[in-house]
């Protein structure tokens, strides 16, 4: 893919803010920019503004652990994430950018009988609904990842795993830039360092946003905000099934050997992969108390290091290079919330919790289709906000609060 | 440290006022683990607690070990991130080496009380 590398990203920043746009998207992360990109490329809708309070990709799009997978636990999610995974596979070709997309395979490890049942169920459901995951025994596991301690330090023995060969990763900044570049080339306005402070209303209807750069009218307003969506929604009296939690991760210094797959364990609540630079990337579950803070804690580092070493003893000899925190919108049923809100002209794409990065292409494409046609595409219909009122929640053990 | 041994306590749950006024056996070890709850060594007579709704039940879920004051403090100083009490006698509870432990400080010696499921972990972390 080296032919893509030489060309600098060509971001055409707007020199003015229009009084109004057909579509105003709040949030210049992956989801907001992908929505703008697909509006422009698939539907010819280019009178679009993306409003970002920091710089593009400065929120969770730049803080996630970049894992792409489709091995979810319910049919609706498997279909959606499989579509997104396939779109990622084409994205370098489509955008002409090297996104450092690499297929690595993902092992999800079971340390108990219950875990084995869960991983077997995952493999069956994935296969039945269009993704590919197989249950593998301990012998195959140690062939795929010889560094694993199959005894789990005598405490977390490995009984089996599900293996998802299509598990991949990509460079998060480059994904954000590729979408921003593609959207801006077609005339989408991206306004950085502009904060939304309120909504413009006409009766019930949302008619635009109030910002630090003045009022901006919008035919439709879409919240693609990460972390602060309930605060935004409360400005129009909208209640959402969302809590915001901190999620921490760290990378070590370079591990000299190649570490092929992505390794995850629900039992231990950690997942480990190797970055393109050779650092080992370790992430964990969200912190339990809701918070918007970006502080990183020593106790996380201690417990996460302890648990990851139980899986991969070689990590013991590495050093922690960086640690950081993102804030995740966790929905009540651990599935995303996409589409209409009940407030006329206001749409949301939220609840991306700890699984937002892998959903960027499909989330953006489907939201764009919804905006352009006014109808909810079948792929995302199960994820509508109204599912909570209709007793159709999408509780997914396959997402389970890690990556 | 010496092996942790099962200790018999009586768990008393009652109003804070009743616990303040309760008559405990002379010289008995009485640990105020919450405002409305004590662990008292040995057996306690129901009539000794002036609260008609008091719960008085035998409690066998703790193992304990007495250690000399110096080595107890030495261990606590690197196993706790909270401030140790200065007065004697004193009671304190909290995470010790990551384990929920109750500690009774006397002038010459210290009692460590560990819930039974953590006894092996605690003994390992002591060494």
């Amino acid at each position, binding site marked *: 893919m080296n032919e893509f590398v030489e060309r600098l990203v060509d971001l055409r920043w707007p020199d003015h803010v229009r009084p109004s746009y057909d579509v105003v998207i709040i949030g210049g992360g992956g989801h907001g920019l992908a929505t703008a990109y697909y509006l422009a490329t698939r539907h010819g809708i280019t009178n679009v503004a993306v409003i970002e309070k920091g710089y593009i990709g400065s929120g969770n799009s730049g803080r996630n652990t970049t894992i792409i997978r489709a091995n979810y636990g319910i049919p609706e999610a498997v279909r959606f994430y499989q579509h997104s995974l396939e779109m990622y596979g084409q994205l370098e070709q489509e955008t002409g950018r090297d996104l450092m997309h690499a297929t690595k395979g993902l092992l999800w490890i079971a340390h108990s009988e219950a875990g084995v049942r869960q991983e077997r169920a995952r493999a069956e459901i994935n296969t039945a609904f269009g993704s590919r995951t197989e249950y593998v025994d301990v012998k195959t596991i140690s062939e795929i990842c010889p560094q694993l301690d199959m005894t789990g330090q005598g405490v977390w023995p490995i009984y089996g795993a599900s293996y998802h060969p299509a598990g991949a990763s990509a460079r998060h900044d480059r994904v954000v830039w590729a979408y921003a570049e593609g959207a801006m080339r077609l005339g989408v306005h991206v306004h950085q360092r502009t904060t939304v402070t309120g909504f413009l209303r006409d009766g019930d209807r949302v008619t635009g946003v109030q910002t630090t750069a003045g009022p901006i009218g919008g035919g439709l307003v879409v919240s693609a905000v990460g972390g602060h969506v*309930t605060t935004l929604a*409360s400005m129009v009296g909208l209640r959402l099934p969302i809590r915001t939690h901190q999620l921490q991760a760290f990378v070590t210094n370079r591990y000299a050997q190649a570490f092929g797959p992505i390794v995850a364990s629900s039992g231990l609540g950690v997942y480990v992969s190797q970055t393109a630079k050779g650092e080992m990337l370790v992430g964990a579950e969200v912190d339990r108390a809701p918070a918007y803070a970006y502080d990183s804690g020593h106790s996380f580092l201690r417990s996460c290091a302890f648990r990851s070493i139980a899986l991969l003893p070689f990590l013991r000899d590495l050093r922690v290079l960086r640690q950081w925190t993102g804030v995740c919108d966790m929905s009540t049923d651990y599935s995303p919330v996409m589409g209409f809100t009940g407030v006329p002209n206001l749409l949301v794409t939220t609840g991306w919790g700890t699984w937002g990065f892998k959903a960027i292409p499909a989330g953006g494409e489907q939201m764009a289709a919804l905006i352009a046609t006014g109808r909810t595409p079948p792929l995302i219909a199960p994820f509508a906000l109204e599912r909570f009122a209709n007793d159709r929640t999408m509780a997914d053990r396959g997402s389970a609060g890690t990556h | 440290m010496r092996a942790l041994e099962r200790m018999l306590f009586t768990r008393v749950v009652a109003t804070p006022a009743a616990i303040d006024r309760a008559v405990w056996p002379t010289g008995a070890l009485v640990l105020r683990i919450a405002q409305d709850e004590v662990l008292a060594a040995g057996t306690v007579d129901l009539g000794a607690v002036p609260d008609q709704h008091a719960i008085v039940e035998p409690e066998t879920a703790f193992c304990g070990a007495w250690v000399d004051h110096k080595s107890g403090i030495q261990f606590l100083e690197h196993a706790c991130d909270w401030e140790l009490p200065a007065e004697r006698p004193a009671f304190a509870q909290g995470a010790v080496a990551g384990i929920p432990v109750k500690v009774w400080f006397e002038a010459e010696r210290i009692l460590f009380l560990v819930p039974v499921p953590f006894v092996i972990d605690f003994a390992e972390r002591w060494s």
Partner: protein
Amino acid sequence: MTVRRLRIQCPHCGVRAIEEFLHGEIPTIPERVVDPDARDLDRAFMHTNAEGLVTERWFHAMGCRRWLTLTRDTRTNDIPERTTSYPPS
């Protein structure tokens, strides 16, 4: 470099690291939600998720094993020490 440790002042046990406690929420349903079904829906699924000071419950799992009530700033995780109360108000 100093490592910031989050701590809670337990009214019975004293100041302890936040890891000794479990978090518990006090659900808040806005008064303007009056329809009983809407209130049930809100109680089951919706969250205020306040960005700022929240009053909440914490259980001192490794100490007195009692719930206490305190105020925490979700933007910073700061817990003004004097706001802890016990038993819960």
